């Protein structure tokens, strides 16, 4: 005669009430799905944000004092608001141990009388061909690439300015006021940043064309292990400069992410608690319905520990099945979740928003199993302490 294992008995018990078992498994699966998706979103969002920040190229900017926000100054004052700094400052900054890379920049603005009815201003950003492309390596090109020569009369157009000026690689462009022709060698993809409206030229070309030898700003890439705050304080000791750092930006973003993490965790805990109650309810109901059966088992020699093990195993089977299905669902619907969340959020970074990795899957399965074990304790204990005579008698009475 074939010997039947406890696992098989537990499994067969669950199959006796298929619908109820299925609904319980689905409840757990939903909880697991929510858990994996929420934590996947949490880590995906954070990773994408960090990547977006890294893609900005530099985390600190040194500008001449009195010109803290070039964009605003230019809007208000045109080119007259620009302040300059000595190029030697770039060399001094580059020598600091916290620095991974620096890139000097010079912005120039001209009035273009033929832009619009009353004219407009055109801005040109002189960048160093040796360092700027390296720091801004994430800038995608729609066509062409960066200029190579430091004094080339060549330009790279941001997407929107290229569209406005209808410029493509190989076309010419006339710098207003200066009447200097430059050749377009690259057009950037749309980035959604101010780069879209920028005309980049080699730094030395801008210095030559506009007759300005100074700089307007220096972009600094700080080493990952550097103390940004301390380095920022150090930069402030340089004469007549102002420092704009991403530290604050990053802190703000990370605060937002941390807040989101707490919310996510709370929702996950609630989902697990609901699932846990469902499991306890289902298994307890099953135990109550099988009082007589449990009584017979015990009268046949089954120990309290055997009954406990049997009921506990049923709970664990329900939870692990639910966990596996929920995790699978989360993996299959990750892309859909990404799209839905992206549409719901007012701001989302450019990378994937939901990142589910093996670690998260294993942790979820572990949590669900632990929940199953915890949920099963009370119904199993209840079943284990049933007295055979009481259960048989109660059956006869009913």
């Amino acid at each position, binding site marked *: 005669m074939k010997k039947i294992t406890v696992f098989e008995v537990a499994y067969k018990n669950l199959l006796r009430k298929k619908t109820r078992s299925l609904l319980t498994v689905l409840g757990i699966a939903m909880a697991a799905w929510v858990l994996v998706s929420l934590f996947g979103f949490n880590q995906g969002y954070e990773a994408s944000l960090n990547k977006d920040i890294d893609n*900005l190229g530099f985390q600190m900017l040194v500008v001449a004092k009195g010109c803290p926000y070039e*964009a605003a100054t230019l809007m208000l004052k045109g080119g007259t608001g620009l302040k300059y700094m000595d190029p030697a400052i770039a060399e001094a900054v580059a020598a600091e141990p916290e620095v991974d890379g620096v890139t000097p920049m010079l912005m120039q603005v001209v009035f273009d009388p033929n832009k619009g009815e009353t004219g407009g201003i055109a801005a040109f950003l002189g960048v160093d061909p040796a360092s700027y492309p390296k720091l801004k390596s994430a800038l995608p090109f729609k066509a062409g690439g960066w200029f190579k020569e430091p004094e080339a009369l060549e330009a790279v157009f941001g997407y929107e300015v290229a569209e406005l000026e209808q410029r493509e690689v190989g076309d010419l462009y006339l710098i207003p006021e200066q009447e200097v022709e430059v050749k377009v060698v690259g057009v950037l993809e749309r980035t959604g940043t101010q780069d879209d409206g920028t005309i980049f030229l080699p730094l030395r070309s801008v210095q030559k064309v506009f007759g300005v030898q100074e700089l307007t700003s220096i972009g600094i890439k700080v080493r990952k292990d550097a103390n940004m705050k301390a380095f920022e304080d150090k930069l402030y000791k340089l004469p007549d400069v102002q420092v704009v750092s991403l530290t604050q930006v990053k802190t703000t973003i990370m605060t937002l992410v941390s807040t989101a993490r707490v919310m996510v965790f709370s929702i996950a805990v609630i989902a697990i608690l609901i699932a846990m109650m469902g499991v306890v309810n289902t298994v307890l109901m099953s135990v109550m319905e099988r009082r007589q059966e449990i009584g017979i088992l015990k009268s046949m020699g089954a120990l309290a520990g055997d009954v406990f093990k049997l009921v506990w195993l049923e709970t664990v089977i329900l939870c692990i099945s639910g966990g596996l299905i929920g995790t699978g669902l989360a993996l299959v619907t990750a892309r859909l979740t990404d799209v839905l969340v992206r549409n719901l959020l007012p701001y989302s970074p450019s990378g994937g928003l939901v990142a589910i990795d093996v670690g998260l899957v294993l942790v979820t399965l572990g949590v669900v199993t632990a929940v199953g074990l915890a949920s099963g304790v009370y119904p199993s204990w209840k079943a284990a302490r049933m007295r055979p005579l009481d259960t048989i008698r109660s059956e006869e009475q009913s």
Partner: protein
Amino acid sequence: MSQDHRPEPVRPRGPGPKKALLLAAAGLAVFAAAVALYAAVGCDLNDPDRDVKRLFPESTGYKTLYVSIAKRGGEDLLRKIEARLGDAFKGLFETADVPYTMYEIHKGADVIGYIHGTNQKGTYGGLQVFLALDPDGVIRGFYFQKLTSRAAKAFRALAFGEQFRGLSLEDFYRYDVVTGQEDPPGPISRIKNPDPGSEADFRAALRATKKNLILVDEFLLGNAHLKFFKG
């Protein structure tokens, strides 16, 4: 001036506080790299209320319509428009999905005209050619909203734009935008290039005008001038 119709598509969602914060953060991070001095690219009137009143002083209101070849007919329509233009749409920015902003001008309940601008590639930059048209598609006003050219002053002179007054798509069908010839010579040949050294920009202006008229005919006039197209 009232605006009795709001644009249908291209409606940006209002930024929530979180988005505003993050956008501000991103802006701060990259501000040194550049200045966004260029508004969203398209060919809209810079100041519709002011411009409509200037071009149609008798108007009491206008409707703004957004159309694109991609949405109205896709590749087939693009081919038809190219055939009417006598030239293919070229490059990165002259494509079927370019949104065209068309202004339908009203005086009370009556439509008294249209305003439409098109982008065109010039030698040194983009040209924005705007036409004010009567309800039959006849030009009553021509001007460059934007122009990058060594001869910008001459092209912007009132006398140059005046030469287009009274012309319609019927006249422009005889003008070949590729060769720059009109066969037989007619009113288009009589339009004088104000700067012979800027022939390419002059031709670009004529091509932009022809394209502009075709698009208005297609999207607003129910192809009223198609009968003059000899294909």
